């Protein structure tokens, strides 16, 4: 099993100029990233939607790699999204999924059938041409460069330690440093996109 912060730290070395949507890894990614204007840490607008948001950005910016760190809870909530992504098949879309096997932000309750789901198999079945699964950091480090060098869409399931949050939402330390609108505006400026 891997620590989210450690795998994101390693990923940073290989991101290049990719747009990164850190999803539920946002609280780790924001302090790590050295290219915040290319990050879209949206927090949790509505569960199950990160993959769609990533797909939309990837389709809109086909010359730019778009890397998403989704979660297994989000993916389970929108399994049909994998079919849409596979059909659109954006070559610039890299769909990573942080699998902590639980709903960490609500106290750590297990997701349904938590220990028995093969997410990479589901992605392949949905039509992704490539799908991987890693549980050990050394395997992830070894394969990541090749994964990012090849065209997408690719799905990568990453088994991570749960970092359960038990305190009430209102008492949690905020990790976002910009509003959602500011993050989008910053990316648009960086990529010279007209609003």
């Amino acid at each position, binding site marked *: 099993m891997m620590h989210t912060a450690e795998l994101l730290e390693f990923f940073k070395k290989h991101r290049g100029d990719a747009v990164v949507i850190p999803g539920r890894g946002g609280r780790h990614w924001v302090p790590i990233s050295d290219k915040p204007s290319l990050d879209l840490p949206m927090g949790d607008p509505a569960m199950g939607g990160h993959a*769609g948001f990533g797909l939309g950005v990837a389709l809109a910016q086909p010359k730019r790699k778009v890397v998403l760190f989704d979660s297994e809870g989000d993916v389970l909530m929108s399994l049909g999204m994998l079919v849409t992504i596979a059909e659109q098949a954006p070559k610039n879309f890299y769909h990573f999924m942080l699998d902590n096997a639980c709903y960490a932000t609500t106290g750590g309750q297990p997701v349904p059938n938590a220990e028995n789901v093969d997410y990479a198999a589901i992605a392949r079945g949905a039509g992704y041409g490539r799908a991987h699964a890693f549980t050990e950091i050394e395997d992830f480090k070894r394969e990541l460069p090749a994964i990012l060098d090849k065209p997408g869409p690719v799905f990568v399931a990453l088994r991570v330690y749960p970092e359960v949050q038990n305190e009430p939402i209102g008492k949690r330390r905020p990790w976002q440093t910009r509003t959602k609108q500011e993050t989008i505006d910053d990316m648009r400026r960086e990529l010279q996109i007209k609003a």
Partner: protein
Amino acid sequence: MSDASSNVLSPDIVHREMKQNGVTDVVWLPDSETNWLYLLMKADPDLRLVGVSREGHACSIAAGLSAGGRKPIILIQNTGMMESGDSIRGWLMGLDIPVVLMVGYRGYTRHGVNKDTAATYTERFINAFGLQYYLVESDADAPRISIAFKEADRTKRPVVILVADEFHGFNR
């Protein structure tokens, strides 16, 4: 209500409205109001169709497209719109996405005597979210589509067009 000579909503006119308003991507799930429109959209090389399997997915996809500089439209049915409530809240309203949702008004009867609860709750649902909406029944109403696009752009909010023409102009 329009006169009898234009008492249907032509898919060609809806397609033209989309083009005039710069739509680049149609994020959609088929419904009974939009079959013939689908054929027109599919034949248009400048429109990308992004099919979804559940309507809520359309909201986050449209949000991503908009963030990335495209101009999507969401094309779904009222039943799916209601299913999409949290995604409309979080991904469209929460991110200030100026998008038009063209929503098939299943069960609409004009006189208000509904036999389909999909129609009963449609406008109540939209009002609960505080969204602006326009009813389009026939070609004569088509200019409201452009009004909706302008309003979405001006307010940076989703705006709904209710297409109340089931089994007529959008189908052969």
